[in-house]
């Protein structure tokens, strides 16, 4: 049976403590900032570079954006130092966007594969 008991020591969010208060060195922040600036320069540079096809350009731009976002999320938002739950949340939300896009575009790209009007 379930009991009431006087023991908040057993509280299970003991893991929580470690998760939250990690202080990151200023130097680390500055390094990340520098990396972000370089990546920003890189995207603009890539824009002017003709890489043969728009798809490749788009892929490069999006890859750089993802790397930037990952840096911000990992360090500025402290996910790197956080509990797995935070990781799962962050990755999960990206996954869901991907899911929406994938199924949505699947419809548009496969229209007209069959030679049937409107299918």
């Amino acid at each position, binding site marked *: 049976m379930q*009991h009431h008991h006087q023991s908040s020591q057993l509280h299970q969010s003991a893991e929580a403590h470690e998760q939250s208060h990690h202080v990151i060195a200023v130097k680390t922040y500055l390094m990340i900032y520098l990396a972000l600036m370089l990546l920003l320069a890189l995207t603009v540079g890539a824009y002017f570079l003709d890489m043969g096809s728009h798809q490749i350009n788009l892929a490069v731009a999006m890859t750089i954006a993802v790397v930037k976002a990952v840096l911000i999320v990992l360090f500025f938002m402290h996910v790197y130092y956080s509990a797995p*739950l935070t990781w799962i949340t962050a990755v999960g939300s990206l996954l869901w966007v991907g*899911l929406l896009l994938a199924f949505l575009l699947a419809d548009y790209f496969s229209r007209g594969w069959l030679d049937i009007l409107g299918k």
Partner: protein
Amino acid sequence: MSASAHARRDDGRPADYLSDTSVASWLLTTDHKRVGILYMLSVTLFFFVGGVIAGLMRLELMTPRGDVMSTPDAYNRMFTMHGVIMIFFFLVPAIPGVLGNFLLPLMIGARDLAFPKINLLSWYVYMIGGVMGVWILVYGGVDTGWTFYTPFSTMYSNTYVVTAAVAVFITGFSSILTGLNFIVTVHTMRAPGMTWFRLPLFVWSHYATALIMVLGTPVLAISVVLIGLERLFQFGIFDPKLGGDPILFQHLFWFYSHPAVYIMVLPGFAVISEIIPCFSRRPIFGYRFIAFASVAIAIFGFLVWGHHMFVSGQSMYAGAVFSILSFLVAIPSAIKVFNWTATLYKGSLRFDTPMLYAMGFMGLFTIGGLTGLMLASLAIDVHVHDTYFVVAHFHYIMVGGTTMAYLGGVHFWWPKITGRTYSELWGKLSALLVFVGFNLTFFPQFLLGYLGMPRRYFEYRPEFQVLNVMSTAGASILAVGFVLPLFYLLLSLRKAPDAGPNPWGATGLEWQVESPPTTHNFHEPVLVTCGPYMYSPEEAEREYASQHVHTA
């Protein structure tokens, strides 16, 4: 429970969460139990508004010609308002808002939800949306159907589409806030010893529901915003004249609205998973499978939205993919139904009102779900899409399923919520009326649908009349069944609390505190040492036997 150490009410009873009766104390409360009561009042109100509209619709549909309402427009507004109110203002908030709010903290041994103020805020946000909804209803309504399909909603309808979009948008935020609160609460507020696999299945289901609320609702929000903007500024994101695609709206809408049907049914599962073991006096069968099935439904429920669009002009390949995924997402529901059934085996069954509702749920949900599979079958859906077959399908799940589960839950926890017992006789009678009335109302609609009667029809072919009359007759029985509880439940409030902490002899933490509970739920820190549903059928029998001897 040592209540003596605590404050007393004016009438000498120990103070509970209901003690303070001032209006301000209700409107400013952050107590999850009181917020639950606020939700209960509002969803009941909306249910009856939606129900009366349904009654009017059924009256109109008694005859093939339009004769009750003066114009088709009036009827079109009716079914739209019926759908909008029932879905957004009744069914989505019903179980999570009322029972979820009330029970979630109690069940996990917490003093409140993680964000009590946000919880109250979510009720206010919901009420703002709801009041706008009623305002629209009073001032003439909306006639787009609850699905708001473009370009009708953006270019052709001349009703309050923008207001309705805003109302739905606002209500959506209430859903998001509730979901957020539940997720965080389950993660951080569990009492010591309350591990994930000691959680009642009610909590698992609500957790899964909350995930859908957080992940899906924003997409609904953005699609109704786009509707509003397109209507106001004519910039045409879905307008075919500008190269826009009306089907895109359908995609965005169903990306939310299919998962939303699981927002509506998972909390129903939550209630059933509590009632069945309690009245069978035995541990639930296949706890882990039921728990994981909830999460699986929440996740895979996002992959099937296109099954509402099989004949819309979506690509056939997309249709084929959405179809197979719809079949697969039915498996976790099947797991649940079978596990509940297995729970009855070797139990010690009693048929109190909540159990009657739960058994009704199992049968009607099974029929609703299996007809869902027919709809997921591409070729069959081509024939029955947008006919009364679909109407019957979703009423079987939403009325026969979730609304029954909600009523079952209200009866089950009523003694906890109010401290009073109600009349079993009336309870059983109304459960019976609901079951009979329901089947008479909606079973004929399956036949109508296969015969080809389209939905959203103000007038219909005369050969459909007989079945429609049956349906209307059923609806009037159903109405009586739904109104009865209002009376005997409210009447029970007139007597002094007589329920005691645990009238059903149930095992959950919520049954170990007073009825009604005190503001802080638990007087001492809670330590959980074992899983839920530790019932024993043989013990129940001995108990029964001894009682029997005494009275005889």
